[in-house]
């Protein structure tokens, strides 16, 4: 049978953002897949070099609309890592609270979208309805439904009002109840199960080989979580890392649902701590000394990594961001080949790719002004080499 090429993207209803997947099929069976990133021209790293440290925190918040706390979290971690700045305990609890609220709404968003992608619009609408109270809660706590702007170097900008504790608890109960209902629905529905079980399997070896992170890795039985492995605030709470063995789409769904429940538990620990832990919420930092720092944080999609180099001025001279989807997108090579086309699309969606997180390169042109798209990895490695030489 002849191979047929199905271009998925750059603009396609499956993808909320511009992205290109080159799928080769024989009939309905996919025999090869190629990804091309670099359709979104963000330039965040470059802009960050022209902003002060405080401004760059707000800037990285705009990298992603969904995980808009993960990037500031990693960014302040990186800046604090330069000078080993200690932050007050109450600020740590507030950071955890916001981070986990964001994880809940991000996972709910994915569950809804996954429903939409397999043609189950009712799940989409229902889950997004359950997500709404979390956004309203965020607004009560931080003043914004999204882009909370709470993070500062050395702490947080706005205190958590202890009077809100009785407001938060019922919302968490409700979310937990809905999640348990959702697990029940999926376990009882044979059509849904046949659509998700055993589809798009990413084995543990492949997950390690392709450097998968976050729920994508954990669903394949790869026990990795920055919140537990390298905590900057999470040492204050118990984090139970959810790991499932199979690596299919169903397991990725289960990991996310259980993580929502786990996040509710973590938030409850914070709420218990708030009345006891009073005191300042920000440690005033006057200046950042020359040096470099890295910050890691477990975003809803996996580990997000920020590198910041300072020369002693009030601006970073280099700000490097690596989002989790950058590691997760290549796993398609391992999980998609051999599947029917209909299954490939839900497998593509199952790692919860966030392209605007991943892509912050400006347009890459070669010497003749032609667009370069094949060796971005080589370019990235070359840049790392260059930076390493500058440091040494």
């Amino acid at each position: 049978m002849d191979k047929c090429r199905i271009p998925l993207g750059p603009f396609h209803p499956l993808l909320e953002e511009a992205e290109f997947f080159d799928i080769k099929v024989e009939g309905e069976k996919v025999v090869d897949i190629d990804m091309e990133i670099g359709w979104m021209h963000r330039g965040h790293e470059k802009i960050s070099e022209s902003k002060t440290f405080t401004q760059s925190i707000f800037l990285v918040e705009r990298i992603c609309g969904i995980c808009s706390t993960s990037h500031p979290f990693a960014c302040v971690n990186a800046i604090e890592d330069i000078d080993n700045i200690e932050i007050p305990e109450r600020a740590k609890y507030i950071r955890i609270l916001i981070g986990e609220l964001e994880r809940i709404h991000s996972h709910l968003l994915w569950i809804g979208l996954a429903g939409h992608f397999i043609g189950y619009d009712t799940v989409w609408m229902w889950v997004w309805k359950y997500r709404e109270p979390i956004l309203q809660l965020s607004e009560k706590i931080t003043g914004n439904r999204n882009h909370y702007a709470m993070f500062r170097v050395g702490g947080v900008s706005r205190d958590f009002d202890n009077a809100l504790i009785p407001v938060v608890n019922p919302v968490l109960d409700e979310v937990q109840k809905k999640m348990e209902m959702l697990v029940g629905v999926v376990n009882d529905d044979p059509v849904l199960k046949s659509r998700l079980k055993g589809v798009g399997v990413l084995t543990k070896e492949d997950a390690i080989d392709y450097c998968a992170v976050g729920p994508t890795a954990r669903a394949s039985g790869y026990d990795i979580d920055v919140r537990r492995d390298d905590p900057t605030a999470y040492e204050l709470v118990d984090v139970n890392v959810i790991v499932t063995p199979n690596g299919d789409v169903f397991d990725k769904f289960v990991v996310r649902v259980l993580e929502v429940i786990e996040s509710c538990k973590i938030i409850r620990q914070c709420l218990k701590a708030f009345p006891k832990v009073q005191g300042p919420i920000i440690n005033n930092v006057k200046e950042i000394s020359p040096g470099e720092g890295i910050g890691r944080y477990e975003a809803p999609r996996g580990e997000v990594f920020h590198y910041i180099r300072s020369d002693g001025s009030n601006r970073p001279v280099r700000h490097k961001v690596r989002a989790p989807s950058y590691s997760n997108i290549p796993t398609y090579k391992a999980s998609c080949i051999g599947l029917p086309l209909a299954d490939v699309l839900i497998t593509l969606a199952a790692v919860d790719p966030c392209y605007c997180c991943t892509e912050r390169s400006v347009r890459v042109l070669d010497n003749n002004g032609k667009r370069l798209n094949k060796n971005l990895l080589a370019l990235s490695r070359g840049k790392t080499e260059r930076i390493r030489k500058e440091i040494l």
Partner: protein
Amino acid sequence: MILNYILYSLIFPGLLFTLVLGLVVGWVERKVSARVQFRVGPPFLQNFYDIFKLFGKETILIKNSPYVIFLLAPIIAFATVALSSTILGTATFFHSGIGGDLILIIYLLVIYSVCVILGASSTGNIYSSTGASREIKLLLSDELAFILVALIAIIKSGYQINLTGIISYQASNGAIIGSLSGIIAFIIGILVIQAKMTLQPFDIPEAETEIVDGTFIEYSGPLLAFWKMAHYMMFVLLPMLLIVLFLGGIKLTVWGIIAGILKYLVIVVIIILIKNTNPRVRIDSALNFFWKYASPIAFVGVILAILGL
């Protein structure tokens, strides 16, 4: 006589009536779906606005494609649906089929699917051809079950293929759904409707998030309007077919008409609820479902019908 036929096919049970009713039912479908999903839903006339607007839009043709097929496919599909609803409607409301029977309706419905396949594969678009190949597979899977369902009605009514015959048999002996084989046929019939209208869980040829509305991706303007109208007219035609075959048709008395409307709404709501509580299945699962489960069960129904159950 000829004037009568023209009126039948263009105004009352035919084109205009089915179209208006179909668009209204399309609104019911959208509204019920919206309420199931905690949305508000569109206003009553939304479908009329949509069709009206599509007629004012530009028709985009593809260079280097056999655009005669591309142009004719939606119009022939629309005409076949209008014709079959005329045949069904005259049998239901006037008890005088205008020369058509159940076999003709089965043929016309296949022509509709063939038009979808031809129109989709004439474009050369890869999504469209994938949709066409899926439509072929779907047609192959649901057609046998559909014929067996019709066969049960034929056998139960004393081997009559005439729609008026089936209705008058039920008027004297009670609706076919009252028997065991009738219930089996009705349930399989609803699932077949789901596949014939490409609604979830069998919206595989159109799969918006996979192949971007597949079969209809290259259509625009009035041609798309014809597809839409044919689709909404199927919303009248197929439930009406089930009513005629298994629920005893519609009697032309006040209570008969109220009961008819109720029967129709019940079937439509069942279809909408199935649509809203199922994800899209894969094409191989659909084939499996119809060949391994639905068709054998319908076949058992046929045997039961022969035995008189």
